[in-house]
């Protein structure tokens, strides 16, 4: 092969490599933007610092999980409905284990250790 023909080949290869890198960076950036803006990032518990710890894993084991699914083809009668309600109630009881989820108290001035705002004259707490 002559030197003249090698040059265009090396040049094309470099262009191809550069284009591949640009496309990879662009698509990765786009997917991260979508991941962030869609809110999926806030559901991702595999992020550093958000992994379930041992205590949480132990608590999860203690929660009685209902291995029950109502069938779309089941006969709707007193027995099946009683069973449905029994399992449903257990699930409700599990749900109620979290008391006052996202309560505003967690972000109150007291919770953050801030002095309370002084009330103006005539205002009640």
């Amino acid at each position, binding site marked *: 092969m002559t030197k003249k023909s090698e040059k265009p080949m090396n040049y094309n290869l470099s262009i191809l490599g550069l284009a591949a890198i640009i496309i990879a960076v662009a698509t990765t950036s786009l997917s991260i933007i979508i991941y962030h803006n*869609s*809110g999926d990032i*806030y*559901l991702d*518990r595999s992020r550093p*610092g*958000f992994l*379930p710890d041992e205590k*949480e894993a132990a608590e999860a084991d203690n929660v009685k999980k*209902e291995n*029950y*699914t*109502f*069938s*779309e*083809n*089941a006969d*709707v*009668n*007193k027995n099946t*409905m*009683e069973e*449905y*309600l029994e*399992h*449903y*109630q257990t*699930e*409700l009881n*599990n*749900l*109620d284990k*979290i008391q*006052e*989820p*996202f*309560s*505003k108290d*967690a*972000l109150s001035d007291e*919770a*953050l*250790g*801030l*002095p309370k*705002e*002084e009330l103006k004259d005539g205002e009640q707490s």
Partner: protein
Amino acid sequence: MKKLLVISLVAVVLVSPVSALSEEQTSEISQSCSTIKQHLKNLQLADSRTRSFLGTAYQDFLVSYITPLNVNLVKNNRPSTTISGIYSDILDTRAKFNSRFTTYSQIFEQLLAMDCQKEPENFYAKIEEAREARGKLESSTKKMRSLLGNHYTAVQKLEEGL
């Protein structure tokens, strides 16, 4: 020229932040910045766990109980307007819960990124914004719980009629 001066003055007054914090609070925020931030990070972690738990629970209710029952009732020519009405309310509320959590989390991330030592007033304003978003999120969880309870009552009535 006079008009321009008046407009500029009005603009400056409107744009300049009105401090809602007392000096004591501003100083407290600046001094306890790292403690406050740590508390917020712990809260963020706790919220993530709660969200995960609630999301899974709501999904289980829909997949294992509510949706199959609704489909079953329609298939067997036993449609119940009450049960199907509650079902669509649950779907709407769940969607609102998801979107409100995203909004709240975005505000919270912005809050954590702020420097409370240098900008205590802006930091507190962001806390207020986060409180409001959290309040909306809380109302979604309460509504969801109420609807799930209504579904139970409606199914009980259905069972009594069998």
